[in-house]
């Protein structure tokens, strides 16, 4: 038995089990009075404060110009703050080497960002290889990651351009997970895939978060996606001003202001459903009278 960064390792006859202990690092990310002024004078973020809880999914949602991507990219220092600080578990990231920091944080971007000249398996193995893991071992681990993200191992030797958009995104997620980071940043990862594939990938993301227990920060402009994936949803107005923070349930039940109400579609009645009983069951209709779903039997019935 030995102490490991994330708890206690139990090792017996080459079999290791990681046992999480109560005093393990919380993996909390904290923005303190963060501002970002770009060289051209535009202020993208001003005096931004936010606590991102550990091992939960926090979704930053807002329209374009809300600074959500800028905020996300501050966490791995792809964008440096102009003022204020960002801390991971109480340690300022500004003290850390950007390259080392980035290798310790998973990053998944729109359009996958895969290296077109490398095979899928070598794309997945990129970060471990940078970290000094022997290439053969990194590839071997990469195959297991392909299983994790729901890809056939046969894609390993193909090039990204030979895959569908959805498959490329899965490879992107596998690459983000390859160095076993505790924090995963996802920048509109499903923005460019068709709705059916997007729904599939969203479910996979929920499953992965449940299985792997990472701190996930997810950026999207799609409020439905935010409500689906987020334990905590942060709705941003222009200039990264926080309009409301809360669980999807809290936000839906009690929008903080008109902006939030209109952003989540409550004001147009999109969110208020009424029950209509028919001969074959009960359907839910919206304020326009269009059917939106079927009333399923509740858990108690």
């Amino acid at each position, binding site marked *: 038995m030995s102490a490991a960064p994330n708890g206690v390792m139990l090792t017996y006859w080459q079999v290791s089990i990681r046992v999480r202990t109560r005093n393990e690092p919380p993996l909390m990310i904290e923005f303190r009075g963060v501002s970002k002024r770009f060289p051209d004078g535009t202020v*993208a973020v001003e005096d931004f404060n936010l606590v991102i809880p550990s091992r939960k999914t926090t979704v930053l949602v*807002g*329209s*374009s*110009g*809300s*600074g*959500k*991507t*800028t905020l996300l*990219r501050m966490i*791995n220092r*792809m964008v440096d703050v102009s003022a204020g600080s960002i801390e991971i578990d109480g340690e300022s990231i500004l003290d850390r080497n950007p*390259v*080392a*920091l*980035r*290798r*310790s944080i998973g*990053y998944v*971007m*729109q*359009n*996958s*960002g*895969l*290296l*077109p*000249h*490398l*095979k899928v398996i070598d794309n997945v193995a*990129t*970060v471990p290889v*940078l970290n000094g893991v022997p290439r053969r071992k990194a590839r071997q681990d990469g195959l297991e990651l392909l299983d994790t993200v729901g890809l056939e191992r046969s894609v390993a030797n*193909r*090039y*990204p*351009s*030979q895959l569908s958009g959805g498959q490329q995104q899965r490879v992107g997620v596998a*690459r*983000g997970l390859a160095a076993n980071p505790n924090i995963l940043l996802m920048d509109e990862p499903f923005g460019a895939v068709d709705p059916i594939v997007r729904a599939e990938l969203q479910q996979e993301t929920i499953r992965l978060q449940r299985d792997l227990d990472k701190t996930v920060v997810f950026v999207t402009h799609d409020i439905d996606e935010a409500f689906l994936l987020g334990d905590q949803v942060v709705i941003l107005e222009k200039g990264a001003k926080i309009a409301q923070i809360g669980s999807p349930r809290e936000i839906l039940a009690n929008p903080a202001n008109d902006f939030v109400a209109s952003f989540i579609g409550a004001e147009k009645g999109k969110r208020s459903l009424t029950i209509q009983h028919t001969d074959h069951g009960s359907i839910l209709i919206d304020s326009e009278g269009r059917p939106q779903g079927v009333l399923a039997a509740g858990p108690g019935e």
Partner: protein
Amino acid sequence: MNLLAEAFDWIFSPDRLSGSSPLPAAIALHLLYTFIAVALSAVIAVPLGYYIGHTGKGRNAAIAISGAARAVPSFGLILLLVLVMGVTQKPLAATIAFVLLGIPSILAGAYAGLEAVDRRVIDAARAVGMTEWQILVRVEIPLGLPLLIGGIRAGALQIVATVVLAAYVTLGGLGTYIIQGIPLSRYDMILGSAIVIVALALVLDGLFALLQQVVVPRGVAAGRTQDIRATSPRRRAVVGTSLQERKG
């Protein structure tokens, strides 16, 4: 027509293999000068071009200078350098002139190759934790190689055509026959050697064209042939949403 036949007769005459300046030796010398000049140009232009392409610094200066350098008359430059450096330094003067001639194309190929790489790919490479050096070596150089080879191809063609001038400063090569032929009015000799030079340039160009195909990274080539919605990776870079647009 007659002249052309005489020119070919001159090329294939058995006399070309003997005498004070046999044709194969002249071809070899011509190629050697070309190779040295291209190699030296590349040694100077490739690192410089990569620096410009990776950092984006000095791009405008490079375009202006290389544009102007293309317009410099090579013959005048050789004579000027010989005058400045002294008659004993003829080989060096000629080499410098050829190298200067090759630099603009190779420089352009090097930085254009790096600039053509999709910004999102570079951004992703940086975001997963590559150092600037690793981005250059592992991403930008392999993806930019076809354009660099294209630049070297253009530079080599210009140099192989211009090395003819080496003969003016008594350095030999295929230009020798032209210079000897003019005062003797030996048009078969002039045209014959000109044909050999053209053939040499065409062969060289063909070889570089082949090399350019070979160095296209396999993943990029794979996408080109298999993707039915085929757009070249370069065009994708222009059409896609840029980082600035997405910064929201």
